[in-house]
C-alpha cells in the first residue's frame, strides 16, 4: 500500500469536489476575465487530481495519461481565452466582463 492509497478515496472525492465547486462558483460570479480563467484552471486541476487519485486506486495508468492530455488542452484553452481577453482589452481598456453587453436579448 503506497502513501497515496493510505488516504481513503472518499477524502479525495470530497476535496476535489470542493475545489471543483470553488472553481465553478468563481467562473459564475467573478467579473474579472483573468480571474475567470484562473477559476477554470482550478476546475481543471481538481479534475486532474481526482483522475490521478482514481488512477492510483485502480492501478490503471490510463487516468494519469488522461491528466497529461487535459493539461495540454487546458493550456490551449487558456491561450485562446487570454488572446481574446487581450483583444477585448485593446478595444475597451478593461477586462471587466460587465462591459460585454453589446449582445442582449
Amino acid at each position: 500500500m503506497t502513501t497515496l492509497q493510505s488516504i481513503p478515496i472518499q477524502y479525495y472525492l470530497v476535496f476535489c469536489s470542493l475545489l471543483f465547486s470553488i472553481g465553478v462558483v468563481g467562473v459564475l460570479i467573478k467579473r474579472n476575465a483573468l480571474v475567470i480563467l484562473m477559476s477554470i484552471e482550478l476546475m481543471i486541476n481538481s479534475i486532474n487530481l481526482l483522475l490521478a487519485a482514481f488512477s492510483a486506486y485502480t492501478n490503471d495508468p490510463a487516468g494519469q495519461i488522461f491528466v497529461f492530455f487535459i493539461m495540454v488542452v487546458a493550456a490551449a484553452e487558456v491561450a485562446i481565452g487570454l488572446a481574446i481577453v487581450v483583444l477585448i482589452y485593446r478595444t475597451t481598456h478593461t477586462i471587466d466582463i460587465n462591459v460585454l453587453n453589446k449582445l442582449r436579448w
Partner: protein
Amino acid sequence: MLIMRHELLLIAITVILLIVEIFLPNTQKHKIILPAILLMAAVTVIGFFPGTPGVLFGGMFQSTQLTMMFKNILNIGVLIVFIQSVDWLKQDQNKEKISEFFLLMLATLIGMNYMISSGDFLMFYIGLELATIPVAALAAFERLKEKSAEAGVKLIFSSALSSGILLYGLSMIYGTTGTMYFADVAPLITGVPLQVLAFIFFFAGMAFKISLVPFHLWTADVYEGAPVNVTSYLSVISKGAAVFIFTIILYTVFSKIAVMWSDLIYVVTILTITVGNLFALRQQNLKRFLAFSSIAQAGFILLGVIGQSQLGMTTVIYFVLVYIFSNLGAFGVVGIISNRTGKENINDYDGLYRTNPNLSLVMMLALFSLAGIPPLAGFFGKFFLFTAAAKQGYYILVLIALINTIISLYYYLLVIKAMLLNNSDHPIAKIRSDNYTRLGLLICVAGMVIIGFTSSIYEMVFNLSFGLY
C-alpha cells in the same frame, strides 16, 4: 483503404495550407481561396469511396460504415461553408487572415472526425476540445468589431466551463469503472449513485455543446456576435457532430441506465423545443432568430435520441443531413445580405423579393425546409423523427413537438411574409452575388429538394445504423 483515411487526408491538407500560408507573401493571401476549396472538394469526393471499417490504437479509434458516412456529411457541410464564406473573406478587413479561416475550420473538422470515431473517453475528449477551441478564435475573427470579440469570449468561457463539467463526469465514470474504453465501461455501468452523478455531469457538459435548454444561454449571444459564416458552421456542423457522438455514447455506454436518461431527455426535449420556439418568436435580428430556431431544432433531434432504437439513430443522422442543407441555405442568404449591406433585421428584408428574387426564393425554400413543409427534405427529417419517437410510445412528446412545429411555422412564415408581401420604401438594393455564393446556395437548394425525393438515402442510413445500439 486506410482506416483513418478521412482524418489523415484532412490533416494533410491542413499542413499543406499551413506551409503555403507561411511562405505566401502578404499581398497574395487571396490566392489561397481556390486551392483550399478545391482541396476540400477533393477530400470530400475521396471520402465517398468505400472504406474498410476497423479499429486502431487498441480500440481508441473505431471506424464503422456509419461514422464514415457521417464524416462525409460533415465534409459536405464544411465544403458548403467554405464556398459561402468566399464573399466575406474577400472583404478588406479579412484579407490578411484568409488562410487562418480555412486552417481553423479544418482543425475543428479534424477534431470532430476524431470525436465521432472515438472508442474511448480520452479520444472523445481530445476530439471535442479540438472541435471547440478553434471555433472561439473563429467567433472573434472580425477582431475590430466589439461584438465579435465578445462572442469569442463568451464562447470560450462557456465551452471551457462546460468541458470542465463534462470532464468531472468522465473522471467519476473512470473512478467507478477503472477504464476509459466505451466497450469496457458499458457493462460496468450499473447505476450506482456516483455513476448517476457522473452521467448528469456528462449530460450537462454535452447539453452545453448542443445548446439544449437549461444550458442554452450562450448560444444566441455567440451566434449574433460571430461572423455569419462562423455562426452557420457552429449551428450546423458543430452541433451535428456533437449530437451524433452524444447519441452513440448514450446508446453504447449508457444503454444500461437508459430508463434514467430517457426521463431526463424527455423533459429536456420539451423544454428545448418550447423555449427555443417562444424566444424565436420575439427576435428581430435574423441571426438571433436562426439561433433560437436552431435551439428548437436541436430539441427535435432529441426526439430521435430518446427511443434508443435503430430507427432513432437513423432519423438523427438523416435529420442532421437535411438540417445541414436547410440551415446553410438560410444562413447563406443572411450572410450575403449582411456582408453586402450590413442589414440583419427582419424588417430590413421587407420587399426583398422585388429586388432580389433569387435570394428570397432560396431563403423561402430553406425556411420551408426548416419548418418541415413537404415535399422539401426538412419535412421528411421531422416526420421520421416523430415516427421514431411515436414507435417507442412517446405520444405526448410527439404531440407537444407537433404543436411546436406549428408555432415554428408561424415565425418562419413571418420572415417569408416580410420578403414576399411587405412593401418597403427602402428595400435592400439588388445584390450581384459572385459565382461562389451562387454555387453554395445552389448546392443547398439541390440538397433540400433531392434528399426530399430520394428515399434511397434514408434506407442507406437505416441499413448502416444496424447493430449500433
